[in-house]
């Protein structure tokens, strides 16, 4: 069975470590352009001494351009004064060619005129060495420019792969959230309008939220935040999401639900990892919200007309820390005109340009303003947009942590 498989398509930890060291450039392809054979030989000797193995030659500018096209050299050591096509013309044509990986060009010149040297740089040369060539200088510059190019090239492709992977992971993470279609159905069925905002501090985050229909009168909801962010937090959101997908959401007691989840997470999470969560049931027949909290943020219940705010109680042991943790069912009223607001701690803890965070008090005053500025015509309330705009005006990006905010408006 003779099946050939292509090599490593992905970046490894070893790759990453390579980037912080010095890349091996001995296999770099170098093109030496000089019309005088002795000069080409001398340069070759210096480059071989320095450990380079792939050295090619061109005898004039026309030959150089031809070989650049064919060999795709990493570096060209270019003489200026040559018959037929000279070095200046090579530089000019090179910049016209706009190759995807155009070579670095070290110009060797006997010209000591300021103007000529300026012109060489302006025409796109990477560097220049003065004739007669000092071997140590030629070697140092050749090595320097090649190492730069190799480093950048490896770096760029590593980051391209990584970015693609992170982008995909992020799309997967967005896929955990309720869709606009689901929210429309919920609004029509329960008269509860949900709006949400998400600002990522990072490629991947530890925040998510969800909502699920229980029966004709009741909606289950939760907002969850894994400590930290980045890949590890994201891994945890995925495992919790799968767990939630399989839980029975018909329960009467959010506190029991949290206690169950907590037991499950205690088996899964590493020490020091935990989640904060607030979950609850909106009951439109009872005009109430029953909720339980595991160290979440303070749930805020606002009144559209007055801007009055009632604070819920967020206290409770975080999930995944102690196995026998117990939680408490609490309740809030939920009548037409009420707005329940849930958010991750980035909203209250992100610093503004002076390093000052909103904290609970600041958020409540933003919320009061946002509630009061709604005229409520046709039920078109832009509460969340207004609140987030006030936050944006105050707090610069990037945020130190992911931000999730969800509002539940009883129509």
């Amino acid at each position, binding site marked *: 069975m003779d099946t050939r498989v292509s090599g490593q398509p992905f970046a490894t930890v070893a790759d990453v470590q390579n980037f912080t060291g010095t890349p091996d450039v001995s296999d770099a392809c170098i093109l030496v352009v000089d019309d005088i054979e002795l000069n080409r030989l001398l340069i070759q000797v210096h480059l071989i001494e320095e450990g380079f193995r792939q050295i090619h030659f061109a005898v004039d500018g026309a030959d150089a351009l031809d070989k650049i096209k064919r060999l795709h050299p990493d570096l060209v050591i270019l003489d200026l004064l040559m018959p037929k096509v000279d070095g200046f013309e090579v530089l000019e044509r090179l910049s016209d060619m706009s190759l995807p990986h155009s070579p670095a060009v070290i110009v060797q010149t006997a010209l000591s005129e300021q103007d000529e040297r300026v012109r060489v740089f302006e025409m796109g040369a990477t560097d220049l060495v003065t004739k007669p060539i000092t071997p140590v200088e030629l070697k140092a510059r050749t090595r320097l420019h090649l190492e730069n190019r190799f480093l950048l090239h490896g770096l760029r492709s590593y980051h391209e792969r990584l970015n693609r992977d992170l982008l995909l992971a992020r799309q997967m993470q967005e896929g955990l959230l309720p869709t606009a279609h689901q929210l429309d159905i919920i609004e029509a069925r329960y008269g509860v309008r949900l709006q949400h905002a998400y600002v990522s501090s990072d490629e991947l985050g530890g925040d998510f939220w969800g909502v699920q229909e229980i029966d004709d009168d009741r909606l289950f909801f939760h907002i969850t*935040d894994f*400590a*930290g*962010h980045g890949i590890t937090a994201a891994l945890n959101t995925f495992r919790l999401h799968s767990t939630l997908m399989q839980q029975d959401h018909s329960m009467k007691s959010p506190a029991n639900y949290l206690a169950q989840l907590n037991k499950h997470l205690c088996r899964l999470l590493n*020490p*020091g*990892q*935990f989640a*904060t969560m607030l979950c609850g049931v909106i009951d439109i027949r009872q005009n109430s919200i029953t909720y339980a909290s595991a*160290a*979440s943020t303070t749930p805020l219940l606002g009144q559209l007309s007055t801007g009055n705010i009632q604070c819920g109680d*967020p*206290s*409770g*042991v*975080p999930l995944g*820390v*102690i196995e026998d*943790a117990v939680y408490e069912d609490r309740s809030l009223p939920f009548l037409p005109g009420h707005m329940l607001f849930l958010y991750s*701690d980035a909203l209250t*803890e992100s610093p503004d340009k002076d390093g000052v965070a909103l*904290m609970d008090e600041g958020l409540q005053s933003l919320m009061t303003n946002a509630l009061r500025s709604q005229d409520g015509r046709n039920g078109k309330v832009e509460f969340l947009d207004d609140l987030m705009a006030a936050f944006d005006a105050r707090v610069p990006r990037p945020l*130190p*942590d992911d931000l999730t905010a969800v509002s539940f408006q009883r129509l």
Partner: protein
Amino acid sequence: MHYEINNGGESLQATLSEKITFSDHDIFREMISTMLNDQTAQQVIDLSAVDFIDSAGLGMLLLARDEISKTNKTLVLKAPQGQVKRMFDVARFDTMFTIEH
């Protein structure tokens, strides 16, 4: 975050100051391993000079709790103030730690 460790004979006290956040992971771990290497039975983390802790910071304290619980030492958190105290209240740290006010 900054810390200073003093051995008072009966107890080892780490006095923390400034903020404990996501970016203090390394310095915090360093402090914990110093504490773990010390044989004093009572280990105290004094938080009176800490003015802010985020959820990653709470995670570090939980990690310290986990590590120290594997030894025969006891861990006491001392004098949380302001925002730190409020975070402790919300996360019910009194059910998980000995807190000295």
